[in-house]
């Protein structure tokens, strides 16, 4: 028992303790019921045995009387007579003190029956005394006297009859008692059955109550899984399920507040992001409008300067200072447009709006035009441009003419800017699959610090320039399915920029507008 208690103390769970306690109560109840029923049953059995023993008195008395009479008639001997009376005596003895008769254990008669028993004993004493004094104690001669024998027989019969009678009364009393007892036993059985079932139901109810929070918590987790964080589990108990419920509830509260905090932060972020996007849109719109508005006045400047120039050269063969001035106006107007175009293109690339209007165009012509337009810049920087594409008549590519022009312009302009007094070699090559344009200069070369991000936005290695040209060029060339690279020349003088364009475009049959 101590060991059991020690074991219980070591089990650090109130739920297990509670359930164990209930199980112990139930086991105790069942054992108690079993014991009670067994006891009552054994009680019934021993009463039965007593009835049996008491009932035997009648037969034994009759037998003793018969033996006595036979003895008196001379047809039996003394031993049989004595034996018969002794067996009767032993039987009564057993009824009084308990004992074993014919292998059956007999308890002493309960005290309730002592008055009946004393009657039996009294009658037996009388009967025994009669036999001992009048039969065994007398000589054979006396007994042979018929008169005496007759009287003695009558006395003996009367005494035996008394004994039988009192024994029968005892048997009847015992029978009544046994009957009563068995009725009580039935009632007790019913009572115990009901009690057991009741307690069992009660225990089941208590176990359910103890374990109820588990199903409630399971339901709660289901709700939480669905996103219902306002769930609250109502349960209070001193055991760990109560503790579990409590921590579960506080867990929900923490999760809820965490989620609320998160959604608040998300909202704030979204608002901040929205604001940034709004500003971004406004900036883009501003750039767009500014750039477009600037284009319109450039049209007359450019168009009229060009017209004026051609009108002058038509009439004269000599190039004058005024012609040079016109060239400068034209060249700068074009530069202005291209710089503007660069800014617009960055805005388009960032908004994923850059589209290609592809058409069949001559790369040779594009490059030639750009070099032609850059003459003013070339002269100003005292750069020598070597360009001899004589062996090629045309390089037909399927591309966006304006954007390709821009790429060549950007690369050439960069080369001119960083090559004062040197030379620039523009080369065009062509094989089955692609056309390659390379622009090699003898300028300052690419700053190694800038090189890794050369084609990124706003990267420039001079104080002037937007740093957008190479970024745009790369985007445009890649959108055409080509490649652009840059490296410092092996001889250590200047850098080479080159780009390739595929000659065959899958979308050649139709005007494919690609969104970059």
């Amino acid at each position, binding site marked *: 028992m101590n060991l059991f208690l020690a074991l219980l103390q070591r089990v650090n769970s109130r739920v297990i303790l509670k359930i164990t306690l209930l199980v112990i109560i139930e086991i105790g109840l069942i054992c108690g019921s079993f014991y009670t029923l067994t006891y009552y049953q054994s009680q019934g059995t021993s009463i039965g045995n007593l009835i049996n023993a008491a009932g035997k008195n009648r037969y034994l008395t009759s037998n003793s009387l018969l033996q006595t009479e036979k003895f008196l008639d001379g047809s039996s001997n003394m031993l049989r007579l004595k034996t018969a009376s002794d067996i009767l005596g032993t039987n009564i003895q057993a009824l009084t003190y308990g004992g074993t008769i014919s292998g059956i254990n007999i308890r002493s008669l309960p005290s309730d029956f002592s008055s009946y028993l004393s009657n039996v004993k009294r009658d037996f004493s009388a009967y025994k005394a009669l036999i001992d004094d009048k039969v065994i104690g007398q000589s054979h001669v006396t007994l042979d006297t018929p008169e005496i024998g007759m009287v003695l027989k009558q006395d003996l019969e009367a005494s035996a009859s008394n004994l039988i009678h009192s024994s029968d009364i005892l048997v009847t009393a015992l029978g009544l008692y046994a009957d009563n007892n068995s009725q009580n036993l039935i009632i007790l059985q019913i009572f115990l059955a009901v009690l057991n079932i009741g307690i069992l139901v009660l225990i089941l109810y208590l176990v359910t109550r103890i374990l109820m929070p588990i199903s409630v918590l399971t339901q709660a987790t289901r709700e939480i899984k669905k996103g219902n964080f306002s769930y609250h589990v109502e349960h209070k108990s001193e055991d760990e399920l109560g503790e579990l419920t409590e921590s579960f509830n506080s867990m929900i509260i923490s999760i809820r507040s965490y989620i609320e905090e998160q959604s608040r932060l998300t909202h704030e972020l979204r608002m901040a992001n929205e604001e940034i996007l709004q500003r971004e849109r406004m900036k883009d719109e501003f750039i767009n409008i500014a*750039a*477009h508005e600037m*284009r*319109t*006045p*450039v*049209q*007359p400047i*450019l*168009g*009229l300067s*060009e*017209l004026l120039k*051609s*009108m002058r*050269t038509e009439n004269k063969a000599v190039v004058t200072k005024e012609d040079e001035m016109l060239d400068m106006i034209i060249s700068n*107007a*074009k530069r202005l*447009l291209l710089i503007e*175009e660069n800014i*617009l293109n960055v805005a*388009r690339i960032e908004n994923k*709006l850059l*589209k290609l*209007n592809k*058409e069949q165009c001559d790369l040779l012509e594009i490059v030639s035009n750009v070099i032609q337009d850059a003459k003013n810049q070339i002269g100003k920087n005292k750069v020598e441009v070597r360009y001899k594409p004589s062996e090629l008549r045309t390089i037909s590519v399927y591309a966006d003419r*304006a954007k390709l022009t821009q790429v060549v312009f950007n690369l050439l302009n960069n080369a001119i800017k960083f090559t004062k007094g040197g030379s620039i070699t523009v080369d065009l090559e062509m094989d089955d699959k692609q056309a390659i344009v390379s622009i090699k200069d003898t300028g300052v070369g690419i700053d190694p610090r800038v090189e890794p991000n050369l084609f990124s936005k706003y990267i420039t290695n001079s104080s002037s320039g937007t740093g957008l040209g190479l970024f745009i060029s790369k985007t445009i060339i890649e959108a055409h399915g080509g490649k652009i690279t840059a490296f410092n020349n092996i001889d250590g003088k200047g850098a080479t920029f080159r780009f390739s364009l595929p000659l065959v475009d899958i979308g050649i049959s*139709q*005007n494919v*507008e690609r969104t970059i």
Partner: protein
Amino acid sequence: MAQVKKRRILIVDDEEDVGKTFKMILENYGFDVDCFTDPIMALKQFKPNLYDLTILDIKMPYPNGFKLYNQLKLIDSNIKTLFITALSSVESYNTENYKVYPLRGQRHYVKKPVSKNDLLRQVYSMLVGQEYEDDLLE
């Protein structure tokens, strides 16, 4: 220049100086040019077979270049039109006004500002149906 027959061109652009510039350039190369800043006025005097080519600005107060084109097309179904837009992306017109006038696949537009040579190249190619050659103009 001598090879090219004298042709008549209608220019409609709400920016007076821009229209005038085009007019001056084209006149210098032997074209007969009428120039309007008001699309309604241009429409009023428009007659079938009067012009070989119209050059229309797309972005105008009312009606815009596309709508004007539709009107002109009703009067002269054979009229050739070159669109000019200050908006750098004609594509934006494509998406917005696709149903009014699908420019997709249509190559007859130039971006403003357009250089003299580009303008002439377009005009020649549309009128003569052949590529313009630079040395003609020099």
